[in-house]
């Protein structure tokens, strides 16, 4: 364990634990757009920038992304210093030029007193903030079906060769994790459309409702040791079964006690 000071309060943290986690645990609100529980920290959005210093640094200060900076003994952190707010505001000004219509960005910007960007808005704005959560989640799932392509102002999330991604199984992890709902998909009956591909959804034997795609079920049973039987019913039916099993156990134990 190490002890450090955050906004004037002495706190304890695991050595090597990232600052953002410690800050969040204290209930301090620091914006972060590329942070997601399912993936490793990325340092992409730069919004979680904080000011750090130490007694021994002779007044020298540094500005680091809290999501990637490990907690250290005697570190003094300021999450909302004047300079930090200024940095965050400039970043949001840039975000607003890229995503002027995105509610998440509009709200964060408004919190920092910005309603309009001081830069020129990009020609065709969309809701993608380039946080890379979708591509990283996809890597983490083991598919790596989509990735970041091009660079600079042409950077975007795309499937390989800009064609329907061969490695996609239609699990929807990317769309689920996207903080701005930029990734579009469509479920009609037992057909799922995403990234220009069409998948067939399995149907729950008990409720008759669609469950997951055939390809995803095949992947999970092959690589994650989940029996294929498990996908014959949906979560609802699983919960139903669990509830009735628990009910049976309770009734049985009551019987046992009254014997």
């Amino acid at each position, binding site marked *: 364990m190490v002890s450090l000071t955050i906004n004037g309060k002495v706190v304890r943290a695991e050595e090597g634990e990232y600052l953002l986690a410690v800050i969040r645990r204290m209930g301090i609100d620091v914006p972060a757009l590329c942070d997601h529980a399912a993936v490793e920290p990325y340092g992409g959005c730069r919004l979680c920038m904080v000011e750090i210093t130490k007694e021994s640094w002779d007044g020298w200060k540094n500005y680091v992304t809290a999501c990637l900076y490990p907690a250290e003994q005697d570190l003094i952190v300021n999450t909302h210093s004047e300079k930090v707010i200024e940095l965050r505001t400039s970043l949001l000004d840039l975000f607003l030029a890229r995503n002027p219509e995105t509610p998440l960005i509009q709200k964060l910007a408004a919190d920092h007193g910005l309603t309009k960007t001081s830069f020129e808005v990009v020609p065709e704005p969309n809701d993608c903030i380039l946080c890379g959560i979708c*591509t990283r989640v*996809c*890597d983490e799932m083991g*598919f*790596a*079906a*989509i*990735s*970041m*392509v*091009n*660079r600079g102002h042409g950077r975007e999330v*795309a*499937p*390989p*060769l800009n064609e329907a*991604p*061969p*490695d996609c199984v239609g699990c929807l992890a990317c769309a689920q994790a996207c903080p701005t709902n930029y990734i579009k998909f469509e479920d009609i009956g037992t057909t799922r459309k995403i990234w220009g591909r069409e998948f067939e959804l399995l149907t729950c034997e008990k409720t008759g409702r669609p469950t997951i795609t055939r390809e995803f079920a095949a992947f999970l049973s092959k690589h994650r040791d989940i029996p294929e039987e498990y996908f014959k019913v949906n979560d609802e039916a699983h919960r139903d079964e669990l509830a009735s099993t628990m009910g049976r156990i309770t009734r049985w134990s009551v019987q046992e006690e009254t014997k």
Partner: protein
Amino acid sequence: MKHDLSRVPEIIERYPQQPSSLIMVLQDIQKEFSYLPCEALEQTAAKLGVPLSKVFSVSTFYNAFSLNKKGDTVVRVCIGTACHIRGARQIQEQLETALKIQAGETTKDGKFTLEVVGCVGACAMAPVVLTNDRYHPQCKVNTVKKLVAKR
């Protein structure tokens, strides 16, 4: 345009069959075909054990790689600071007029590709134009067209 892709496996096998060989393999493929054919990317991904999406990501990141076929002669106009102040933009315009294409495009006959690049590290020779790997120093607006004259 059809290409002989039979040399691709041999190119891939020049390096250890592991993800870290990716850029070297792509460089050799680019050199061989003067662009990266899609089929070659797919073969590279499969052989090196890199997801196709990552191969595409790398191929689109570096300027050295091109997914479109480049001309036989790649004409690069340096627009770095020194060249810029010595009239690189006018040189670029002259070449665009002569080749009837914009920077970044390839002529229909596949002979020339025109590109603008940052600094090529020869500021003393500004303004500089490169044809493939050959440097042409102190280019002049009224003579630069000769570089792309039909040969």
